[in-house]
């Protein structure tokens, strides 16, 4: 379970953020970092290198230049494509969910009583995904090595054959 150990929770709703942090905190291997704004998140993301960001869809704009959820999602996916972003929102509209997936969100969770268990399940899904990606990369490397080995064997056989060191008749047939 060590593929995921750093998680960001980015939400200006302090109660929501605290509850999610406490709920996920039961997994001792998770280091949970909570930020109230997208700006704080972006300042720390390259330093802490989280595997998952739970991101609120809607932020109470402090100023006109404050980032909203979609802005933060795009920024994270653009600058840190290996970080999975899970959107959290009070909106249960399908078009909002589809829009966030379009910009690269891994999942979309509606803030409700079941949201916390869903967040847990998403973490497990991401861990599974990371494991599968690692296995796929390993198989790719193994296939490449096997291909290289096979190729070298064929080349060696061809060289030995054409230099007369080996013949078609292995000598079993008199």
């Amino acid at each position, binding site marked *: 379970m060590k593929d995921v150990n750093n998680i960001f929770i980015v939400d*200006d*709703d*302090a*109660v*929501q953020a*605290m*509850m999610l942090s*406490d*709920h996920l905190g039961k997994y001792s291997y998770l280091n949970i970092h909570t930020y109230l704004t997208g700006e704080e998140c972006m300042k720390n993301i390259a330093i802490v290198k989280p595997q998952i960001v739970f991101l609120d869809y*809607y932020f*109470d*704009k402090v100023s006109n230049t404050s980032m909203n959820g979609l802005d933060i999602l795009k920024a994270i996916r653009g600058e840190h494509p290996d970080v999975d972003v899970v959107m959290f929102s*009070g*909106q249960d509209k399908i078009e909002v969910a589809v829009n966030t997936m379009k910009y690269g969100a891994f999942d979309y969770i509606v*803030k*409700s*009583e079941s949201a*916390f268990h869903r967040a847990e399940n998403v973490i497990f899904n991401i861990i599974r995904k990371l494991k599968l990606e690692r296995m796929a990369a390993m198989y790719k490397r193994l296939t490449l090595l096997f291909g290289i080995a096979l190729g070298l064997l064929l080349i060696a056989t061809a060289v030995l054959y054409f230099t007369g060191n080996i013949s078609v008749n292995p000598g079993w047939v008199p």
Partner: protein
Amino acid sequence: MDDQKITDLTFLSTFSGGDTTRMKKYVGMFLQIAPQQLEKIKGAMNASDWDGVRANAHSLKPQITYMGISGGEALIKQIENDSSSRTNLEGIPAMFSQMEELCKKAIVELDVFMKQ
């Protein structure tokens, strides 16, 4: 009879594993934040800032759910939707008054819980 409780802390209790210290942490945060949110909604409403009404109603909505405020979730959702779609704007003040009343009663009940 006005004895009927309007808050239901069943969800919070389950969420907190029955840990009242933890429950009080969340209730305490709600007691601090909710009045501010209500003031923001009222201010935005008085200024006909419907985006502001929507934003603050949106923020308050999950907390209303978590505190189990009976009837509160439907009201706050309606306020959020109407201010977002700019429909039934004239009905929002009445809904907000109801919401405010509910929250005041909820705050009284939750204060009692905090003192236990």
